[in-house]
């Protein structure tokens, strides 16, 4: 009747989502051709094209993002890649806006 609890150890043990989990996207500015397809196809209007050094680049609003990865699929140059970062919670909404910088690492939280 009393068996070992089925409770996981999170948050004390890091949780590793299954391979292929749709976490935060990583954008590689080096591959971007400023086509704007990601922004056009985004169902949640979470991607805005902003000017960086004279070129239009995608700006991600993670608070709107529904993590469907349509942007990654639409991108002709695979500039948007998957990660399994999901611990994005924050007490400050403005930290959820991910600006297109040269190389992007985990910027959530």
């Amino acid at each position: 009747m009393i068996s070992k609890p089925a409770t996981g150890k999170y948050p004390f043990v890091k949780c590793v989502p299954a391979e292929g989990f749709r976490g935060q996207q990583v954008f590689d500015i080096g591959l971007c051709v400023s086509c704007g397809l990601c922004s056009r196809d985004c169902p949640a209007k979470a991607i805005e094209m902003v000017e960086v050094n004279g070129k239009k680049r995608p700006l991600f609003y993670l608070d709107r993002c529904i993590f469907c990865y349509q942007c990654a699929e639409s991108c002709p140059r695979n500039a948007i890649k998957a990660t399994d970062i999901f611990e994005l919670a924050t007490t400050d909404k403005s930290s959820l806006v991910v600006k297109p910088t040269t190389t992007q690492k985990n910027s959530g939280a």
Partner: protein
Amino acid sequence: MTNLAMWARLKSPWVIHFNSGACNGCDIEVVALLTPRYDVERFGIKLEPSPRHADVLLVTGSVTKQCADRLKRIYDQMPQPKFVVAIGACACSGGVFQGTYGTLGGVDKVLPVNAYIPGCPPRPEAIIDGVVKLLNALAAPPAPPKASEEEAATEAPAEEVTEVPAETAPDAPEEVKKDAE
């Protein structure tokens, strides 16, 4: 004394969950938190049925026009100090439903929000992470100017008993004609 109160507050955040027009995706993840895999009772988090008992309001879903008023009312029914957590893309900003005629957008259009948990839906782990981050932010001295704490300090001073309209817990009672026999 304040330390003790703070300790108790951090160790016993009772939550109430309100769906303000979500697709159920976030809601089932919130409920999943109670179940063996995640079991947030470990941290003293309890899901309370009545807003009067709760400390944290978990809101899921873009706020529909029909629900906005209700959401505000539930927030008003909660005793100070109280906190709001927006769970999921819809609660954070309206998500995929931005610009539909039935919704207002994120929860912050209606209430002061203390923590945002993006995701569609966020994993239960992400929700735990969000609550932990909220509690850490509360514990961090000096407390950052949290909207609701300020309100607590200004709007409800020394006065211990706040009068509220009769329409109280979960739903406004229309009338109590039945006397307890």
